[in-house]
């Protein structure tokens, strides 16, 4: 790599020149920042300004560029210099747009700008242009676990985009649940009639596809490695094991129906009570003719009980709604009506949930004479010729009953998501040096594992809620916590076949993207394209395991000596490991303990008599930093005593930054991160929580330094909080003024 040559460019446009002493900023960059080349420009982001920088890079051999102008979020197209390392000093959104107007504020405004230039220059000294993980991988085959409708779809769609696919299916035949259906709910206009499932055609296409390899009667015995270099052991029922080299994984392991034996009050277990799957079996047997009960009697009347064991508020059954069951019952009622319009079919529901075009399907059933009754079933008893369903008719407001030859319970979907990692953690720690029973428990638990990941953090994907392997994010349904592994279909959330095939197609895309990213050494969402990766200096490592435990993505394993093993392709570049490391041996080329530490140290701390406190703000780049930027955009004034540093996540904040800051005379530190709790906002899962936990631990250190605990504070900031964030700052600064200057001033 060429020798480092630094340059700083100071813009005087957008009012910067009117409000700030640009010459002084230049001098600071030159003298204090020790920048080789310092230039200013009246309009840095125009083509002329950009060309000036480009020329310096090309002709002067500049390798490191500090842009002192607007926020790092602004003018990214103009300031795009992919061959050099770059820092941005935010003078516009961070200084002139937020410091109060008027000459009485000139001094503090200039001081703020001076510091940001110092910080930009100081950071520049420590950043390197990320070169990308040299350990790139080239395996682009996609493993699809599960050969049902979702799995087949994922496999076929990925193969059609040119990728090799391996399917592992537990059963002897492709098709899964869909094989057991007589017909499916319509998935395109006119949404009026049950349709062929199409599974046979799809299974045939998959079986004969030149890019798809199918393992039947097989399960995944082990998944080792990382995106782009997974090694998957496929175990056949016979015991034979095949190794497959895999780039990314789609887990489409589907669902199991809720056991109707758990619903005796609704007739579960009675001869003439079936679930929807049971009804499909009767319909397949009837093959378009009259449906008959198990005892051979032709069914003349049928009642469908919706939400059987679902939407349960008692805690005994499923709390959620499986979404597909209203349409499924409608479809099944049509099986009867289509065979014989005189059959009485009643659907007993509380809310008929057929969103979207399902409304047309509902109408179609009504036209066929299916009766819909809003009511709540209280019991199903066996009667002479069938069943007696007792219910409250909610419209007619009366307790009543219906006799039927057959009752169908619309039960819910239970995901086949493998091992629950929370329970697993507990089992592992109990088994670790524990009793035989505890060890037995652990190995029993592992039996239901789907992926058998050889990850330190457990053998399957983390589950979200009710055992579904879903994403926590609304905008990002495929944002999983296991990079390169995507759940699709009813294992992700309860869904119907239409949604499952859409979902599988989306998951296939994400798998393709994962292998492409891995092959280039790039990060996956949300820091997509990031070429930096964690670099560890193992010689300094104390094997404390914090990084392996705290990594939200299970990217770090441990070797036999308990040293961390980084799997960069699993890493999402949040820096949680860096924040966790007590000996500071983990860093990224462009984000490290030093890049931030140097900025903290670069700030000039006025003495205790100046009445100018200094507050360090560490702001999450996802929500808090944009909120601060937007405070600028809306010209919301906040104190000029703060110095803000964006961080990848509060989870990446190393406590050394805090203690260094306070040691060097800052009066306080504000940490701004995302919302915690069940509805957490952190894309790295626990950033705010970890930061809070770590800061809790430095309380003693603060006390030892003779500092009040209030000198470190944390805030949950949403991206829309541009006004609130200014309020937080102003209130905190006022509180610090009240408290008096830090006793550490002058010792730093």
């Amino acid at each position, binding site marked *: 790599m060429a020798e480092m040559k630094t340059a700083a460019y100071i813009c005087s446009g957008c009012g910067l020149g009117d409000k700030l002493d640009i010459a002084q900023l230049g001098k600071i960059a030159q003298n204090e920042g020790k920048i080789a080349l310092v230039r200013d420009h009246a309009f840095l982001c125009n083509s002329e300004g950009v060309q000036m920088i480009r020329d310096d890079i090309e002709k002067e051999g500049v390798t490191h560029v500090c842009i002192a102008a607007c926020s790092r979020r602004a003018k990214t197209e103009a300031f795009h210099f992919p061959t050099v390392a770059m820092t941005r000093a935010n003078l516009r959104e961070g200084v002139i747009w937020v410091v109060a107007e008027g000459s009485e504020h000139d001094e503090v405004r200039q001081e703020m700008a001076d510091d940001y230039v110092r910080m930009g220059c100081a950071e520049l000294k420590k950043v390197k242009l990320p070169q990308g993980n040299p350990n790139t991988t080239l395996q682009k085959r996609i493993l699809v676990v599960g050969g049902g409708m979702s799995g087949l779809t994922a496999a076929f769609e990925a193969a059609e985009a040119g990728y090799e696919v391996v399917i592992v299916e537990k059963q002897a035949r492709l098709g899964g649940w869909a094989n057991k259906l007589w017909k499916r709910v319509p998935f395109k206009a006119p949404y009026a009639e049950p349709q062929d499932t199409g599974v046979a055609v799809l299974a045939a296409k998959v079986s004969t596809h030149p890019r798809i390899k199918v393992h039947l009667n097989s399960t995944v015995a082990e998944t080792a490695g990382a995106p782009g270099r997974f090694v998957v052991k496929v175990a056949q029922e016979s015991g034979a094991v095949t190794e497959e080299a895999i780039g990314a994984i789609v887990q489409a392991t589907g669902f199991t129906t809720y056991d109707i034996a758990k619903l005796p009050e609704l007739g579960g277990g009675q001869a003439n009570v079936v679930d929807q799957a049971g009804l499909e079996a009767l319909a397949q047997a009837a093959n378009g003719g009259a449906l008959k009960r198990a005892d051979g009697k032709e069914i003349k009347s049928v009642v469908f009980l919706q939400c059987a064991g679902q939407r349960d508020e008692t805690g005994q059954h499923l709390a959620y709604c499986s979404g597909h069951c209203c349409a499924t019952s409608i479809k099944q009622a049509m099986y009867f009506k289509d065979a014989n319009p005189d059959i009485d079919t009643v659907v007993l529901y509380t809310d008929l949930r057929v969103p979207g075009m399902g409304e047309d399907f509902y109408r179609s059933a*009504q036209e066929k004479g299916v009766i819909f009754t809003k009511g709540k079933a209280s019991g199903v008893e066996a009667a002479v010729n069938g069943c007696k369903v007792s219910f409250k008719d909610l419209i007619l407001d009366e307790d009543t009953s219906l006799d039927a030859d057959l009752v169908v319970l619309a039960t819910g979907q239970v995901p086949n998501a493998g091992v629950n990692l929370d329970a697993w953690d507990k089992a592992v720690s109990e088994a670790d040096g524990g009793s035989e029973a505890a060890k037995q428990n652990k190995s029993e638990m592992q039996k239901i594992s789907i992926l058998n990941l050889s990850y330190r953090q457990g053998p399957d994907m983390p589950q979200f809620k009710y055992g579904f392997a879903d994403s926590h994010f609304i905008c990002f349904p495929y944002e999983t916590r296991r990079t390169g592994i995507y759940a699709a279909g009813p294992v992700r959330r309860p869904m119907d076949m239409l949604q499952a095939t859409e979902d599988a197609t989306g998951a296939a895309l994400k798998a393709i993207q994962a292998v492409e990213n891995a092959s280039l050494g790039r990060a996956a969402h949300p820091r997509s394209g990031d070429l930096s990766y964690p670099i560890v200096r193992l010689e300094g490592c104390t094997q404390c395991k914090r990084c392996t435990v705290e990594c939200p993505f299970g990217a770090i394993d441990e070797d036999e000596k308990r040293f961390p093993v980084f799997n960069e392709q699993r890493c999402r570049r949040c820096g949680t490991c860096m924040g966790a490391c007590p000996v500071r041996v983990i860093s990224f080329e462009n984000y490290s303990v030093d890049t931030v530490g140097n900025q903290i140290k670069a700030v000039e701390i006025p003495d205790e008599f100046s009445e100018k406190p200094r507050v360090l703000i560490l702001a999450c780049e996802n929500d808090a930093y944009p909120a601060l930027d937007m405070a600028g955009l809306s010209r919301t004034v906040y104190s000029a005593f703060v110095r803000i540093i964006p961080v990848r996540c509060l989870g990446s904040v190393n406590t050394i930054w805090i203690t260094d800051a306070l040691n060097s005379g800052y009066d306080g530190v504000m940490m701004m991160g995302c919302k915690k709790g069940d509805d957490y906002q952190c894309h790295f899962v626990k950033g705010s929580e970890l930061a809070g936990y770590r800061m809790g631990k430095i309380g003693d250190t603060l006390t030892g330094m003779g500092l009040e605990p209030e000198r470190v504070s944390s805030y949950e900031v949403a991206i829309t909080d541009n006004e609130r964030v200014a309020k937080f700052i102003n209130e905190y600064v006022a509180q610090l003024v009240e408290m008096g200057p830090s006793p550490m001033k002058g010792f730093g």
Partner: protein
Amino acid sequence: MSENRQAIAHYRNNFLKEVEVHVEDGEWVKMCMQCGVCAGSCPLGNAWQHTPQKLFMMIRAGKREEVLSSDSMWMCTSCYNCIVRCPRKLPITHIMHGLAHYAHRLGMAPKGQPTREVARLFWNNLAKTGRVNELKFSLAMYFKDGFIQGIKNLLAMQGIGIGLMKAKRLNPMELLGGHKCKDKDGIHKMIAKAREIEERKQGYAS
């Protein structure tokens, strides 16, 4: 109408099917989704013991006696609010008329229900000559509950009658003849034929 009762006997257990066959626009009843917009749209809503949507549910639940003996559908003013608001485009006004007619015809409609009586008088009045004789119709209405009550009604309403006469909008001479169609006989035969066709189609003995 005893033969009609027999004719529908095989529908006993499936009142909805009976309604579909015998009630004007009855085949729409199954399409109701119980939103209740009809119930809230009726100007005489307060007077309904069973709202239209509830009647539809009762039909599906097989409550034959209750539906046909209900006086609710006789409260219909034919304002058509329910029709234009129904999200399923059910011709509710027509179904109400149809139910009322069917109940009336089966003799199950409430005895002495005022609108039922008015409707009967009105039809008989118009069917006689082809055109309505407003005076005779009014008098018939006042006397529908007997002579004494009729005189009382007449006295109570005499202000209105005299007012209209003064305004030349009620002609006492109508009592002696009044407007009528020339082809009275043709109209009689035509109506009789229409009835016959309708009964034939609905499977009544005729």
